[in-house]
């Protein structure tokens, strides 16, 4: 990666594309802005793109296949620009393998922050984090539904999670049986909605344990590893 990471901005709306490209340029990125998927494919071939910012609300069927194309042809991270109302689009888009998304109207500062988080992760050789994609994860009689931020118990009763609990739970189910230190957990979960997560990890762990452990005082699922951190002691199936 060069000193100035090269971003490809794909948005059919000129009123967003132009000022956003300017803003990103001012904030230390090299920006190539294009209006449609066909041009985006050309640029992807022609230059070394470090990250794609893609407006998922663009008209045309190509927007989703472009997302898939990027994911299939390389390891270029993708951030989606999307709107809350288009629930279905968002989920389809994320299933195509985007790394993150911001909701319109988004704060450009937040977008830059997200981009930097992704680059930091790439630079430190961290694992690729896929944003919640509407998938469900089954473990030890529980089901984590990412779309609803809810755990479902063996009897089919939903146990809703707070935002922080959910991100922590997602971190565990996507890395079962791995020891995760507090720093790692902070890093993984802080990528998104950072301000919503400044309480101690331990506090959240104890809240989660209260919800999923049979006996929260001697936890069988989220175990404490001495000097290491926490681990989810369970097989996880992605549904």
């Amino acid at each position, binding site marked *: 990666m060069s000193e100035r990471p090269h971003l490809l901005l794909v948005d059919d709306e000129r009123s967003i594309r132009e000022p956003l490209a300017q803003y990103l340029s001012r904030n230390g990125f090299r920006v190539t802005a294009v209006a449609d998927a066909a041009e985006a494919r050309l640029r992807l071939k022609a230059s070394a793109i470090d990250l794609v910012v893609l407006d998922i609300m663009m008209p045309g069927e190509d927007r989703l296949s472009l997302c898939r194309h990027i994911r299939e042809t390389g390891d270029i991270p993708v951030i989606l620009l999307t709107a809350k109302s*288009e629930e279905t689009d968002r989920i389809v888009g994320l299933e195509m393998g985007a790394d993150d998304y911001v909701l319109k109207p988004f704060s450009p500062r937040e977008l830059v922050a997200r981009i930097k988080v992704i680059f930091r992760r790439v630079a430190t050789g961290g694992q690729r984090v896929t944003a919640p994609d509407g998938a469900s994860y089954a473990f030890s009689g529980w089901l984590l539904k990412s779309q609803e931020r809810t755990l479902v118990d063996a009897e089919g*009763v939903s146990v809703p999670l707070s935002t922080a609990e959910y991100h922590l739970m997602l971190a565990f189910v996507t890395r079962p049986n791995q020891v995760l230190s507090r720093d790692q957990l902070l890093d993984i979960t802080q990528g998104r909605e950072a301000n919503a997560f400044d309480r101690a990890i331990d506090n959240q762990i104890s809240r989660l344990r209260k919800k999923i452990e049979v006996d929260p005082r001697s936890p069988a699922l989220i175990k404490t590893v001495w000097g290491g951190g926490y681990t989810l002691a369970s097989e996880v199936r992605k549904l």
Partner: protein
Amino acid sequence: MKALFARLTPRSLAGQIIFVVAIALLVAQAVNFTLIMRERNRQHVIGSAAPAVARIVDAIERRDEDSHRPERQRVRFTAAPPPADGARRPDIEQRAADILTELGHPPVTVRAYAEPIAHSGEHLWRARNRIDRGPPRDISRLTLAVELTPGRWATTETRIVADRPPLGGWLIVQTIIFYIIVLIPLALVGRRLARPLQALTGAARQFASTGTADPVPETGPGDVRDLATAFNAMRTRIMAMLDEKDRMLGAIGHDLRTPLASLRVRAESVEDESERTRMSETIEEMNRMLDDILSLARAGRSIEPLQKVDLAALADAVVEDFIELGKPVTIADTERTIASIRSNGMRRAVRNLIENAIEYGGSAHVSVTRSDHQIRVSVADNGPGIAQDRMAEMMEPFTRLDPSRNRETGGAGLGLALVRAIMTEHGGALELANRPEGGLEASLVLPA
């Protein structure tokens, strides 16, 4: 009395028809029964009077042959009426006078007396009258005296059956047979009528609560089928209108968000920092209002399925999110409280109430309670509450408390309207009440 009647009469259409027909059948049978009884009485009286009358007529017309008759059958002619022997029978007297008049011997006076006698001679009498079945019946001696012309009486004695012949159980049997013949086919027709109506009711209810409904099968009798057809046509039209509304709202949402997003990006290039912050806050607020308007416009058309959810955990999760943001929100410890709800909608309702409590009351305390027939998620604050006469108004869209208390934030006044819409969709309600210790308590009430 009225209540009792109401309880006894069935509510359903088929039930009412059957009920009315059953009553009508019963009345018809009763009328029928009365007529039959009257005719039988007449026959009985004629049957009782006729032999004696015949004998007297016979005696008048052929007096000379009287001597050949057995003593018992004789007619005595006297100048004075015979002494009273037993109870007078005016019915027989009347009938005898009628028969005599018809036969050309109009009498001056008729006297009839009946006196019960022992059963001794019954078998003889029965044999003679060809009565060969039925239980033994009381026999009476009938004395019939006719004053043919003033001062000239003819008297004779016969035996009659004292009581009327019994009607037996046949009337009951007949009624039951009628009921079987009429009511069973009626019940079948009623079911044929009721089924499509039930389907229609179900579809209409489903429509009222969810905004969508499956088409009703067009079956049953013609007019019911027409109703189903008309309902289906209405359903198609309303659904098309609602779909169009959704599409339009989606388009508006999209079309307004794009310029808002553009504005938001451009706002970043404003040099003055406080100006920039205020601009982005305004844009953020416009976006929230847009969200609320779209949500409210879509309320009642939720695609989210009902799920069994632990409401206590839901409230706790929402509260936790507020605590994360450093807001003064607390929650009472609660047992698992499972309800069938739409999780996202309910989260939103709880969130809106907490936001209101923080904004107008400074803090929020959440509790989840369950009683026999309802579940309440209550959010209490320590604010000034709401004047009683403005409570209902507060739940209407675009209504806010006194603007001076509004601190220039707080969207379009759609929060409570949205909560109410979400609760209606769940078959529940939003209740507002001022707490005795001060402050407002807003409760989401769900049927348990």
